[in-house]
């Protein structure tokens, strides 16, 4: 302990850490019936950190070219010590991170945590979700296997239906007219440079806002909470509880990676025909299924383009929902938005289930 104290003093003599220590001492987290949900964001952040670590390790061997990407991933899986584990954790971790992101998003939505003064926290979080989906979409192609190749082909094709600029977006995403090695190199660039740096800054804003504004108490519990405010210290009480959650997720990742190692599949062949029943990653499936139900022409307009436009409007509404939910802004119950949230959750579940179990 003496050594630790000495080390702390050494730093203290050089940098004034009293402000941070004071903040850490003062920082508390509300304790109430639903405070369990506060931990989900931490789990998502923990998974993001595992993604960075495993991603850097994969980078040591991965080669982003059409003629060597698949082989390099195969090499990681077969010849690199614990390569299979690192890749499986990276792939499973990505999926778990997006799952927890959705859970975190809906929990904050239903707890109306987006109301004043936390509008910017919500918006930065919504951008982080979009960035995570972009991470997933770009990373999916990197092993250059058959399924990823065709899923990327279908996914990028959707961009082409945007009137006017669609073709330019398609060309930008693909680096040409078709999904080729140029697309792979481009997606690699997005995945390891553009998206991480953007995420870093938005995540920083998100975390600073959370630390500065503290946790929001749901309006339904606010009166009761204000009568008898109960809190716990962020450091170390809340962090220790968070750590239990992180360990549980780490254990889950280990189980998934060892029992269901992420497969590699067949190498992509641009001249082969697309495999039957091709689907995007599970988190895009509800949108994919929605587009399948939209007729080719609606009132003389391109149905798919119209569908994508409406989905785009929906996403915009969701990102800026704090400004639409006026009742929540006034700390009043806003049942309409709770119903919207429930309908959206049910819609995602139903569409995903239909796509996996009842659709060809």
């Amino acid at each position, binding site marked *: 302990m003496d050594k630790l104290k000495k080390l702390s003093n050494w730093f203290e003599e050089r940098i004034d850490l009293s402000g941070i220590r004071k903040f850490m001492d003062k920082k508390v987290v509300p304790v109430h019936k639903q405070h369990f949900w506060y931990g989900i964001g931490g789990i998502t952040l923990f998974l993001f950190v595992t993604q960075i670590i495993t991603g850097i390790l994969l980078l040591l061997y991965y080669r982003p070219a059409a003629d060597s990407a698949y082989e390099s991933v195969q090499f990681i899986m077969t010849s690199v010590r614990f390569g299979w584990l690192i890749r*499986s954790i990276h792939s499973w971790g990505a999926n778990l991170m997006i799952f927890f992101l959705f859970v975190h998003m809906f929990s904050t939505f239903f707890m109306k945590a987006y109301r004043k003064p936390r509008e910017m926290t919500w918006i930065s979080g919504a951008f982080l979700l979009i960035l995570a989906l972009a991470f997933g979409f770009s990373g999916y192609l990197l092993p250059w296997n058959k399924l990823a190749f065709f899923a990327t082909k279908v996914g990028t094709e959707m961009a082409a239906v945007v009137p006017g600029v669609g073709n330019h977006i398609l060309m930008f995403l693909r680096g040409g007219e078709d999904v080729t090695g140029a697309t792979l190199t481009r997606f690699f660039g997005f995945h390891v440079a553009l998206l991480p740096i953007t995420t870093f800054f938005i995540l920083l804003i998100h975390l600073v806002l959370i630390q500065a504004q503290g946790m929001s108490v749901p309006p339904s519990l606010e009166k009761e909470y204000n009568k008898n405010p109960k809190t716990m210290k962020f450091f170390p009480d809340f962090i220790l509880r968070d750590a239990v959650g992180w360990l549980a997720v780490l*254990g889950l990742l*280990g*189980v998934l990676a*060892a029992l269901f190692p992420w497969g590699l599949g067949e190498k992509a062949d641009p001249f082969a025909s697309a495999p039957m029943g091709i689907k995007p990653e599970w988190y895009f499936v509800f949108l994919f299924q929605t587009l399948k139900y939209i007729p080719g022409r609606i009132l003389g307009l391109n149905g798919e383009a119209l569908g994508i436009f409406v989905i785009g409007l929906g996403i915009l509404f969701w990102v800026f929902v704090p400004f639409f939910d006026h009742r929540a802004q006034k700390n009043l119950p806003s049942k309409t938005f709770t119903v919207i949230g429930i309908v959206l959750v049910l819609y995602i579940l139903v569409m995903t289930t239909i796509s996996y179990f009842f659709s060809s």
Partner: protein
Amino acid sequence: MNLTDILQREDATLKKIEFIILVLSSFSIAAFAQQGGNKSTCIACHQDQDPPLSTPVEQLKTSVHNNPKLSCVGCHGGDPTAEDADVAMSKAKGFIGKPKPEQIPKLCSKCHSSATFMRIFNPNVPVDQYQLYLTSQHGILLKKGDKKVATCISCHGVHDIKKADDPTSPVFPANIADRCGKCHADADYMQGYSIPTDQLSEYKKSVHAQTLYKKGDLSAPTCNDCHGNHGAMPPGLSSVANVCGTCHLVQSEYFSTSPHKEAFDDMGISECEACHGNHAIHRTSDQMIGIDEKAVCTQCHDEDSQGFKTAAIMRNGIDSLATEISMAEAMINKANQAGVEIQDKALNLPNSKDALIQSRVLIHTLSTEKVGEKIKQGLKAATKALEIGRQALKEVGHRRNMLIIMVVLTLLVAGFLVLYIRFREGNDAR
């Protein structure tokens, strides 16, 4: 005059010549096309009739002969410009009506044996069909006065003749067997020819038919690939191997160097057919070789013969390689299903499978040394693949053990954390 002037003048002269050629060729094509292109009174009249008189007009619409350069008179004679039906279809105008079977080959050959005429439509089209037909069993019998035998129209149709690569043509590869079977599978029709009528049903059981119909592989043999088409004849005893050898080249070569070749020739046994059959050629299997009941070798070789011993040695070798491969394959698949990627799977297993296929083909040499050498190569690769599979399964075990240790460690740390949190809470409460 400098070089540029000379070139410009030559260019102008060339352009003039080009123009004259263009004008002259336009006139000649127009004149030629008019011969057949004029409105035919045959069609004008027949299309207004009830079937069957209008049927040829309907059928001609999808026929390869529906070409402005051709007209009905080419086959039927007569005058297509005459308005009066009696004049148009008069003997004086060369009208022959419905050609008789014995007239048909000659009639078709009028155009199809003329390289000059056929070149107008397709310079690559063969013009020897009539000559070949005359050498065929059909042609020979027709010459002898047999009017039941097949002529051109029996296979190609009459007014609705289509190109052989048109899937609706009766001579499209997938339709040929049924077309031949129309006569050859009809026991009543074939009465008096003293040849079997089960060829079609037998063929449809064959590996060739399965490849053609189920896999849709149009290169798979059908009747005409072995018997010839226009010169159709049953292949003679000595030529069966040559027929099979056109596709099964390696097997044929191996057979011709084997002791069987001389022995079969001496005994008058047809080569490939003796073991594989003819129309109902089944997919080969390892059971065909060896000394058990299903083996074809025991049909001729008794227990004391060298052939019997050779068959047993070859079968044992093949069985041992096939068993080793299936064991390696099962092991690698099991490891794959458990999530272990095997990079080497693309090397040893396919190599051993190739060796198995090659040793099965080498059987035709009857050389135990050659077959043995190939089996040895295959076994080497299969053993390596088996070892890789074993290692992969071992790896699965390691991973499971690692998982247990990791989960236990994680739970322990989480447990300590929970205890520590409670300890802190207890202290705070005090």
